[in-house]
């Protein structure tokens, strides 16, 4: 199944974690991720290694697997539960010259009905006394979409992302960030298994299904602001806001507050709250009045009017392991997030025997756990 929505691939690329004119430290992370919500359970490993040479060049490599057991609401109402696996590899290079860092990366994600290749380039420069860092990012994606049980169907997605990021040191204790990104996709942008429903008095349930039909292009723009404060007793507080809008008329606001509190040099605690609200895509509907009601049809809850609330906690324990002497320091980390998804115009079709369009609005909670080990060498 399409574990990877077209754009979600871009998220898998490692962020440009560039610190002003110094390459990040050598590091290896091994993570176990677990997601359980809405009838879907996904877990698996993730590995990330980075190493620099002569303080000028750096290489990083990543490996990631999703093992999916899905009985999601869409699957349960229109198909049958399934299990699947998605594997992703990534590699990246960085070159630092003076105050400029050049980076290139490539990643491939593969599952039995979706293959995605992504390449990206970025330039990052420090200026104005190293108080300002400006980055330009360009990313290109090529996806191949197929359908299980259908040897004829094959389509593709072409994706381009342009982004600019500015980081500004405001005071000795405050750093600000501003990002803008524009994402354009062309091709088969929906899910070949998903259906929409329309009122059908002849059907047993009162509604029937037909395949979803999406536009073949989508352009989205996102603008975000953030600020991170150093609190005098040694802690950090961060606020983020992002505004997103696209050609499908989806409008999303994301706001996040987080707090980091270290204890000595051993423990670090994090807590954060994230809120997201979204207006539905223009052609989205939970229930169309009749078959072929309009040119474009969508009943993907990802495009619905919805909100999500997240409350998350994290604990890190830092230590120096005598057994792993080649590591300068290590840490064990546990992060837990609870996310609530509330839909304003997506209904729970597991409830039958009621007039179509009066089923309860769907809502579900998800537990997300990350447990990982980090080692610096």
């Amino acid at each position: 199944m399409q574990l990877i929505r077209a754009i979600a691939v871009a998220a898998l690329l490692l962020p440009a974690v560039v610190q002003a004119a110094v390459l990040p430290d050598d590091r290896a992370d091994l993570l176990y991720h677990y997601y359980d919500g809405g009838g879907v359970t996904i877990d698996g490993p993730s590995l990330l290694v980075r190493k620099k040479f002569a303080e000028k060049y750096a290489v990083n490599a990543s490996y990631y697997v999703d093992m999916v057991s899905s009985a999601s609401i869409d699957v349960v109402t229109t198909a049958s539960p399934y299990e699947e696996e998605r594997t992703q590899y990534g590699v990246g290079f960085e070159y630092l010259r003076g105050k400029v860092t050049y980076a290139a990366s490539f990643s491939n994600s593969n599952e039995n009905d979706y293959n995605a290749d992504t390449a990206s380039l970025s330039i990052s420069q420090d200026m104005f006394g190293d108080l300002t860092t400006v980055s330009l990012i360009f990313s290109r994606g090529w996806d191949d979409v197929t359908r299980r049980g259908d040897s004829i169907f094959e389509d593709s997605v072409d994706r381009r992302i342009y982004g600019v990021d500015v980081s500004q040191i405001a005071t000795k204790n405050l750093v600000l960030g501003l990002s803008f990104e524009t994402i354009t996709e062309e091709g088969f942008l929906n899910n070949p298994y998903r259906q929409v429903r329309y009122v059908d008095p002849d059907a047993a349930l009162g509604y029937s299904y037909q395949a979803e039909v999406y536009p073949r292009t989508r352009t989205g723009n996102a603008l975000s602001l953030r600020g991170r404060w150093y609190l005098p007793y040694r802690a950090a507080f961060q606020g983020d806001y992002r505004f997103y809008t696209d050609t499908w008329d989806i409008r999303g606001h994301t706001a996040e507050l987080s707090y980091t509190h270290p204890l000595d040099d051993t423990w670090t605690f994090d807590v954060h709250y994230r809120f997201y609200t979204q207006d539905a895509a223009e052609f989205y509907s939970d229930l169309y009045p009749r078959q072929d009601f309009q040119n474009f049809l969508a009943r993907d809850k990802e495009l619905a009017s919805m909100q999500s609330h997240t409350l998350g906690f994290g604990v890190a324990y830092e230590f120096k392991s005598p057994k792993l002497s080649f590591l300068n320091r290590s840490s064990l980390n546990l992060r837990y997030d609870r996310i609530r998804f509330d839909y304003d115009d997506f209904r729970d079709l597991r409830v039958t025997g009621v007039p179509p369009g009066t089923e309860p609005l769907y809502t579900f909670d998800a537990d997300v756990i990350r447990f990982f080990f980090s080692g610096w060498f």
Partner: protein
Amino acid sequence: MSAARIAAALLLLAAASGCSRVEPWVKPYERENLADPIMAWDRDPISSSYMRHVYDSREGARGANGGAGGGCGCN
């Protein structure tokens, strides 16, 4: 051109040349707190890229996650 216009143009030029020599108001040796690991935008990229994927595949919005800059400003 009047004398006032020439003077205004010179003023603008002077101001503009001053801009490129703007002294950083946070000196390199004052970046102690900013260089603290807890002040990094993204302390654990392996975890944050995973969470980004969790949200991007369930929400309509994506992009502009940021991540560069800040830090010690060394070299």
